[in-house]
């Protein structure tokens, strides 16, 4: 099964199985990982599932849609070029091994 590694703000790493079709956000909340809030439950409405994708893996992720792009302008922690909303990162085979860092705060 594909895996994603979540790095907390203070460097702690957790690797989780993420089934195809499940989002990086869903896997994290199902596991109860601190660091992803996901208030809207994945509707791309809240920007509390913000992650930084490892730079060299950005191209493996699905393209960003307008709504995500706009919501990223309103994140609680600074937006960076590798910022994504993890609810929009739905697992596909190419994303296996993805490493995402969680921001200092989501709210």
């Amino acid at each position: 099964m594909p895996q994603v590694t979540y790095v907390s703000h203070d460097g702690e790493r957790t690797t989780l199985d993420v089934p195809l079709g499940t989002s990086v956000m869903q896997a994290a909340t199902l596991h109860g990982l601190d660091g992803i809030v996901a208030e809207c439950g994945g509707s791309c409405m809240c920007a509390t599932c913000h992650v930084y994708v490892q730079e060299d893996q950005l191209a493996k992720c699905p393209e960003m849609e307008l709504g995500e792009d706009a919501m990223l302008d309103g994140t609680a922690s600074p937006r960076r070029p590798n910022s994504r909303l993890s609810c929009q990162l739905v697992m596909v085979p190419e994303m296996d091994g993805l490493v995402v860092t969680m921001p200092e705060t989501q709210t």
Partner: protein
Amino acid sequence: MASGGPADGVVIVGAGHGGFQVAASLRQNGFDGRVTLIGDEPHLPYQRPPLSKDYLDGKSGFDLLLMRPAAFFAEHRIELMSGRAVTAIDRTGKAVALAGGSRIAYDHLVLATGARNRVPPLPGVELDGVCYLRNLAETDALKERLAACRNAVVIGAGFIGLEFAAIARGKGVPVHIVELVERVMARVVCPETSAYFGREHQKTGVEFSFGARVERIAGEGGKVSYVVLDDGRRLPADLVLISIGVVPNEELAATAGLAVANGVVVDERLLTADPAISAIGDCASFPSRHSLRNPVRLEAVQNAADHARCVAARLVGKPHAYEALPWFWSEQGALRLQIAGLTTGFQQVVLRGEYEKGEYSAFCYAGDRLLGIESINKPADHAFARRLLAAGRRVTPIEAADPSFDLRAAATARG
């Protein structure tokens, strides 16, 4: 330890969106005392919005509804008591009573009891086939009925009724919505947005009776078979969804002598007149600096979660007035509605974008005060609207109507 001592910690009544978030935020803020989360539903805390969306549609299962897995509560030392109802508050003894007789003492009590379905005083509401959509149990029952449904009648054209209608139509079920006033979502969106949504639902085959009153629900052999309107019409139905709004669960507070008025009355810190009792979320009536009229009682995930964070911060010694900008969303089939701010009391609506195409925002004004912005299939506008309104920046009606006006620049400007 005497009852009411510091070791009794925080007791939260209601394990929904707000209650869960208080517990989680207390721990996140380093609160070290006891945290007890009591909820009368038998499940782990779960999210409500998907109930009328992907969950009802069968696109996602129970595991995806959960706020967090069971282990989360143990790891964070949150004493979760599911399936337990609080029946009374003893303010003098600083304890709550549970159904079945036990008592739990508190230093601070948070009421996060939410709201319950408004049940109309109609003959026939007790018939088999009359459904509601508020909690998981009701949604499971509704889902099962929907699978075998031949004719659905929805009473009330609010968010829940419309979200249900979109899913039912997607399954090919005929839907007839009966609404007392002349337009959909009349309490919360402007007439232009009502008109757009009404038309789009009609295009998918939803039938509407506006300005119509249900007189009774009729049945045979204990099962619903049709709905009678006040003009004498009979609408065939083997499923009737009643979605005419909710009433706040305020009785615990009222019986304990706390003020209630369409919700538990709290101040700008979300505190009741008893300094040991807060109220949040759907059950709380509070003053909002974003509202033209006060107090307000809101039904939104944002409201419950931000209230929860505000109370948790106060309980760890970082008090601040509650000032978060209200926002809300609804998904009805392909239609996505997002609202930033509180538009109640608006006098003027300025449309921006392509209304006919269904990609627009409605800027709602009272005088030159921008109260709120409804965005329809325009997520970028919504994101900017939230920033604008939260920062109290001005956008005049003329600017809003001007396609060359740069909303992003206005929203992201400094100062």
